[in-house]
C-alpha cells in the first residue's frame, strides 16, 4: 500500500481521474484505510467544487445587445475575410463529384506505370548511335583521314578541293563517315 505522502502527492490526479488503473487502485485502498488522507481528498473535492461553482456577474440584457452591436460595428468596417488558398483548394476538391475508388486506383496505377516506363526509357542511352564522346572521336578520325589536304593549305583555297571534303559536309547534319 502507498504511504500517506505518496497518496497526498497524487491526490490532485486521483480526484481528477488521471491516475492509471494500478495507481488509482492503490490510492483507493489507502484512502479506505486512512481517515486523514480520506479527509484530505474530501477537502480537495470541496475546494474544486467551490471553484467550479464560482459565479460571474451577470450583466443585464442591454449589456449583451450593446456588446454585439459594438463588435459588429468594429468588424463590418472591414471587408469580410476570404478563405485561405488552402481552404479554397480543400473546399474545391470537396465539391468535385465523388469518384469510385477502384477505377480511380486503376487509372492512377496505369498512369504511374506509364510515367515510370517513360522515365526509364528517357534515361537509357540511344541504342542505334554511339555515345556523344564516341561520335566526337569518330569525327576527329574522319577529319584526320583528310589531314593531308589540311597540310596543303593553298590547295584548300580552291573550291573544288573543298567540295571533296565530304567529311566537312557530313558535319553539316549527316553522320560522319568512319572507315
Amino acid at each position: 500500500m502507498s504511504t500517506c505522502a505518496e497518496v497526498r502527492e497524487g491526490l490532485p490526479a486521483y480526484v481528477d481521474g488521471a491516475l492509471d488503473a494500478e495507481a488509482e487502485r492503490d490510492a483507493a485502498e489507502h484512502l479506505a484505510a486512512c481517515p486523514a488522507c480520506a479527509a484530505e481528498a474530501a477537502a480537495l473535492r470541496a475546494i474544486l467544487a467551490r471553484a467550479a461553482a464560482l459565479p460571474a456577474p451577470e450583466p443585464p440584457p442591454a449589456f449583451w445587445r450593446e456588446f454585439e452591436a459594438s463588435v459588429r460595428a468594429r468588424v463590418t468596417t472591414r471587408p469580410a475575410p476570404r478563405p485561405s488558398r488552402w481552404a479554397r483548394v480543400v473546399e474545391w476538391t470537396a465539391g468535385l463529384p465523388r469518384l469510385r475508388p477502384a477505377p480511380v486506383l486503376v487509372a492512377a496505377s496505369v498512369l504511374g506505370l506509364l510515367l515510370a516506363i517513360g522515365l526509364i526509357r528517357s534515361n537509357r542511352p540511344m541504342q542505334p548511335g554511339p555515345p556523344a564522346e564516341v561520335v566526337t572521336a569518330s569525327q576527329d578520325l574522319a577529319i584526320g583521314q583528310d589531314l593531308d589536304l589540311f597540310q596543303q593549305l593553298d590547295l584548300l583555297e580552291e573550291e573544288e578541293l573543298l567540295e571533296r571534303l565530304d567529311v566537312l559536309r557530313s558535319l553539316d547534319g549527316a553522320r560522319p563517315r568512319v572507315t
Partner: protein
Amino acid sequence: MHQPDIEAVQRVLAGDTEAFGVLVQQYQQEIYRLAYRMTRNAEDAKDLSQEAFVQAYRALRSFRGQARFSTWLYRIAMNLCLNHLKAAAREDPAEVNGDLPGPRTDALDVLLTDERDRAVAAAVQTLPPQQKATLLLRVQQGLGHREIAEILDCSEGTAKANYFHAVRALQRKLRAFGEGAPGHEHVR
C-alpha cells in the same frame, strides 16, 4: 464541430459579414465570463472579450475547422487575457505575487456571501496566470486536458502538470481558511 458554427463561418467567408453576429451571440457570454474570471474586472473583461471577437473575425480565414470553433475562439481570448495579465503584472507586480490579496470588493465579492467561496475565489485569483487559466478551463468550463492544451498552445502533459500545480497551490492557500484537511495520521 458545432454545425451552426460551421455554417456561420462559411457564410462570413463567403462575404456575409452579418453572419458573424451568430457567432458573437453564441459565444459572447462564455467568452466574457472567462475573461472576467481571468481578470476579475468587468471593464477589462468586456474589452478583452470584444477584442477576442474582432481578432477572430480578422483571422477567420486561417480557421481550418480542425479544432472546434469554440476552442479556437477560447485560444484567442485566453491569449488576450494572459497578455493583459502579464502587462498588468509589469505595471503592478503586487497583483501577481502569489499571496492572497488584501481586502477588496468587486462584483464577484458581492455575489459570494459564503466566506469560504470568497476565499476560494481569492485563492484562484492569486495563481500564476497559466495555472489559473488551466484551472478555470478545467473546473469551470469542464474542458479536457487535451483541449486545454490546444487552447494554451502547450502539450497535454504540460496542461496536466499546470492543473495539478494549481490544485496543490489552492490546497496550500486554503488550509488557512479551513478548507484543507484535518489532522494527519500516517498509514503505511
